[in-house]
Structures are given as C-alpha cells and as structure tokens.
C-alpha cells in the first residue's frame, strides 16, 4: 500500500494539502466573523456546526486520506458515526422528554 504512490502522486497530494490549508484558514475567519453577529442561539449553532463539519471533513478527507480509503475503514467509521449520533441525541431526548417539551 505504501508503495503505490509515485513522486508525481505525492506532488499532486502536496498541492491538495496547500489548497486545503488555505480553505481551512478562510473558514476559520468566516466562523469567527459570523460569531460576532450574535445570531440567535439555534441559528448560531447551525451555522457554526456546518462550518465546523466542512472544516472537519476537509481534514479527514485530505489530511487523513479518508477520501481514498478502503471500505473496511468506511464501515468502521460509519458504525461509529451511528453510535456517536445516538450518544449525543438520546440522553437529551430522554431527559427532556422528546422534542416538544422545552
């Protein structure tokens, strides 16, 4: 696996890394700027999470090479993602009795 990348491949990868770096810097500035508008909480959370997800995906896909990973890794991460969502959502739903009670 380590031997399938040629020098040209690496050069291409490096160009991608630089592009992603610039994108990450830009998105960092965006997220800090948006926060200064002091949007209402639910909108602020949505925007911040969308930007963070984009940034996180860039790091995962390109720095961590997830975009070209093998199926087994995708399967493990997919399973983890499901349980991650369960862990974040269910305790709050249970304690606050579902969506409709605030």
């Amino acid at each position, binding site marked *: 696996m380590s031997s399938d990348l040629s020098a040209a491949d690496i050069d291409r990868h490096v160009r991608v890394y630089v592009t992603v770096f610039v994108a990450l810097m830009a998105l960092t500035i965006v997220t800090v700027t948006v926060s200064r508008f002091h949007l209402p909480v639910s909108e602020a959370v949505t925007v911040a999470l969308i930007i963070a997800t984009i940034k996180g995906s860039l790091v995962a896909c390109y720095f961590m090479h997830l975009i070209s990973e093998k199926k087994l890794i995708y399967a493990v991460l997919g399973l*983890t993602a499901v349980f991650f969502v369960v*862990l974040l959502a*269910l305790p709050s739903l*249970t*304690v606050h009795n*579902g969506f409709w009670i605030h």
Partner: protein
Amino acid sequence: MSQPTEPAHPAAVAAPKPHVAHEVHHEELGFWRKYVFSTDHKVIGIQYATTGLLFLLFGFSLMMLMRWQLAYPGAAVPWLGTILGDSRMPGGTMLPEFYNQLGAMHGTIMVFLGVVPLAVGGFGNFVLPLQIGAPDMAFPKINMVSYWCLFLGGVTMLASFVIPDGGAAQSGWTSYVPLSDIAGSGQTWWLIGMVFLITSSLLGAVNFITTTIQLRAKGLTFMRFPFFVWAQFVTSFLLLLAFPPLEGAAVMQLMDRVAGTSFFLPSGLVVSGQALTNAGGGNPLLWQHLFWFLAHPEVYVLILPGMGIVAEIIANNTRKPLWGYRSMVYSLIFLGFMSFIVWAHHMFMTGMGTTMAAFFQTTTMIISIPSVVILTSLVISLWGASIRFNTPMLFALAFLPMFGIGGLTGLPLGLNITDIPLHDTYYVIAHFHYVVAPGTIFALMAGIYYWYPKATGRKMNETLGVIHFVGSLICMNVVFMPMFIMGLAGVSRRLFDGGATYDFAQPVLHWNVVSSWGAWTLGFFQLPFIFNFFWSIWNGEKVTENPWQATTIEWSAPSPPPHGNFLGAPEAYRGPYEYSVPGAPKDFWPQYEA
C-alpha cells in the same frame, strides 16, 4: 467411547522442544521476558486467565461474607470478624458501610476483574490466534501493555480496601451520583482503577479486531470462522465503542470529586442537614446515561464469549455441525448493534416520558430475538446427536437452560410497566446472576476443561470435574432461585440486613438463609476444581494435538503450542464443523486438513 486414530498432520509436530519451531535467529529470552513481560499471546492469555480466576475467587469470597450478614443480620461472624478490625466489623458484626463496600466491590470485581479478563483476555487471547491459524496477535507489545493495565487496575481496586479514609467504594458497582460524588476516597480509587481497566479493554479490542481481520489463515473466510471467533469479534466492537463514554464519565466524576465541579451535582443539594456549597446545575441522570451506555453492551460482553465457547463444545460433543450457523452469526451481529440502543431500560424509573420509554422498551424486546435464535439453535443442535457427556459438555449443556431462565426472567424487566414493582429488587439480582453465574461462568468452566489440554498438554480429571459440575449446578439454583420469590415479594436489593426491618419482607426472609447456605456450599464445590486445576498440570492424562477429535485449527498445533504456534502456515479448506460427513472415513473432517 471409541477413539479414532489421528493421522499425522503436517502442521503439527510430535513433541519437540518448544523453541525449536520458528526462531532460528532468536536468542533465548530471560525469565522475565519469557514469563512475566511476554509478548506471546498464549502467555498473556494465561496471565489474564489466572488473574481473572483469582479475582473471581476473591469477588466470590466477598459475597460469601455478605451472605452471613444477609442470613443472620447483626450476628457476629466467627473469627473473621476480629481480623477485619473495628472500622469494618466491630465485635465481629458487620457495619452497614462495610456491607456496602463488599457489595460495590463484589459487582465491580466480578464484572471487570473476573469475568471479562477471563472470558475476553484469557480465552480470547489464548484461543483466538490459534483458532484462526495466526502466529500471534497483530500487536504483541500492545497486548502485553493491555495485560499490565488490567493488573494495575486490579491493584488499584484492591488497594482501595485498605486506604484509611473510609475503605473501598461503596456506592454500588453502578456508582450512582450524587452519592458517589460525595463518598469517601475509595470512590476516587475506583474511578482511577476503572480508567486502567477501560484502557486495557480498549487496547485489547483494537488488537482482537485487527488480528481477526488481517491474520486469519488462507481459506478462512468470515463464514468459515468458528462461532467462538465471531463471538469475540463482535464483543471487541462492543468494548471498543461502548467503553469510552464511561471513561469520559469517570473523568467527570473525578472532576466533581477532586476539582469541585458540579457535572452531576444538582443545585440545592443537602447532605446530612448541610447544604452543599458547590455551584450546582449538574444532572445526576447524565451519569446514569453515560454509565449504562457502556454497561448495557457490557452485559453482552459478559455473555457472548461464553456463547462462543458453548457453541464450540456442543458441536464437538454432538459430532454434528451446529444447526443454523448462519442465522447464529447474523443474530450475533444484530445483537451487537442493538445492544447500543437499549440502555435506558435500566432507567425506566427515572421519570422519562412515555415516548422514550416506549422507544427503549421496543428496542429491548427486539434484542431478545437474536438471543433466542442463538439459544434455540444450540438446543436444536442437540437433536439427533451422539452426545459425549464429558465435563466440558456437562457445563455447556447446563448453560442452555440456565441462560434460558436468566434470559426469560429479563423480559418483565424490559417492559416498563412490569419493571415498576420489580425494579431494584432481588428479582433483578436473580435475573442477572442466572445469566452470568450458571450462565457465563458455567460456559467459562466448560472452556477451561475443554482447552486445558491444549494449554498444558494434559487433561483435567473427569471424576473431579463431574463432582464440581453437579455440586455447582445444584448450588447455583439453591442460591438464586429463591431470590425471584424475594424480589416478587418486594424485597429491595442492597439492603444490608436483607430486608429484615420490613414487615412485608418477613414471610420471605427465611430464603436469605437458604441462599446463604447455597452460596457457602457452592464455594465448597469449587475446591475439587481448584485442586484438579493444579493437580492435573503434573498428573493429568497426557494428550497430543487433538484429544477431543475436534475440527477447528487450534487442534492442529502441538499441546502446548510453541512460540509461533504452527510449523507451517495453516490453511482452511472447509467450514468449522464438518462432523459426521456422510461417506467420510472418520466422524470428523478437520478444517485444516487438505
């Protein structure tokens, strides 16, 4: 019982010195590197198994002491009382605080230091690489580290008994807040101990999963895996993904106890007439959610390796393939997945709304289906079989009805209405002990008698085995069956006098005495096992590679296997349970024979 002669196998070797096998270039390792800080999965497996068995004995002893107090509340314990001192048993009578320490530590030790190290660390480490035809685990050094983390965790837990400020943890193995937040320093030791144990399991899980996927022999596809391999594989995923939230929760409880935070402390808490001065705003239910997120999958960690062991032994001693192997495997996978979304059935009484209660009740009912599929398949596997009633098979057979009782009695607990009167009573204790004690522990005993010859080159004594079995089976039922009656009568768990102060409990209190005598007799019947275990190392009947005429790959290695396990890399040519194949010369056709 006829013993077919075993042809010489290319992968096996008659009886050479163990270190001739692989390492022409290896220097002989010193005593410490070979037996203490070994990276060989077999040595590590034996370390885990021995540690697990010792802790099982210790945890059981804690319970035998508790049972005196339950049978004869307030009565002085003969001579042991004076040894334990005035802070625990003044004048030989047990203090409630000490009872609570015994209770909390019995649970903690049996689950995390007894069963899991033996079932996963012991059997998993020793058998798994051999059964998939691998030379060792994928990460041998990490394997060694994972054992020593367990060891450190165990030492921490034991040390907590003798620290001066109030003794060991005493807020239940569940460490519910806010009680555990304000408890004595033994609780802090419990939390630190848990961090070590969780780390050990996480490292182990990474190792098992990687090894199973990557180091399996040529021809050993997933659907040719012995069921034991599947069981350990799913168990490892449970450990990997369910333990970290408890580690997070333990960190938060440590912060509450040591740094004065209020993660779990609500505002306005009053303790012994004094209002607490902490910031408040915390949520005790948060602890429960994070704890049970782990602890529910944990109960499947407790049972799955045992099911794997029983499956192997039943196939071998019925001389037939397992019935419904494929559905058993799919059930295992489905069970593993579902185990992550049922946890709040341990929290039905916390005031959750009907929607979420209905959700968790539904997932809980659904999860009983795969368990039933697995158990039923094992029972149907007996139909039309030529059963060999050796000691491993006796334990494996007893597992079936015992686990059946345990499982069925769980159903009223999983339905939130019937859980209302049964919650936190002796019924719950009876339910889970049936699954773990005559359930899992019987399966582990079966596994010890079954794989002992592979690990030592000798069989354990059959007569002592049968005595151990019969005595244990009867006593297990004497101990736990009456607890259903007590629970149905409303006797709560964790009462240091067994319910003696309650009027409604009076008609059923005598069952405490029955359970206690059952427990002490059960302890007595472990003596033949302990004796047998050591005696057979030197005096047991000597065996070669395959004393049980089994079909799975571990039986092609010498008994005991050398470093590196196999001379040549084994290959799998067929499924794991080709017994009684029509037209074949022997009644078994090993997976590894060309």
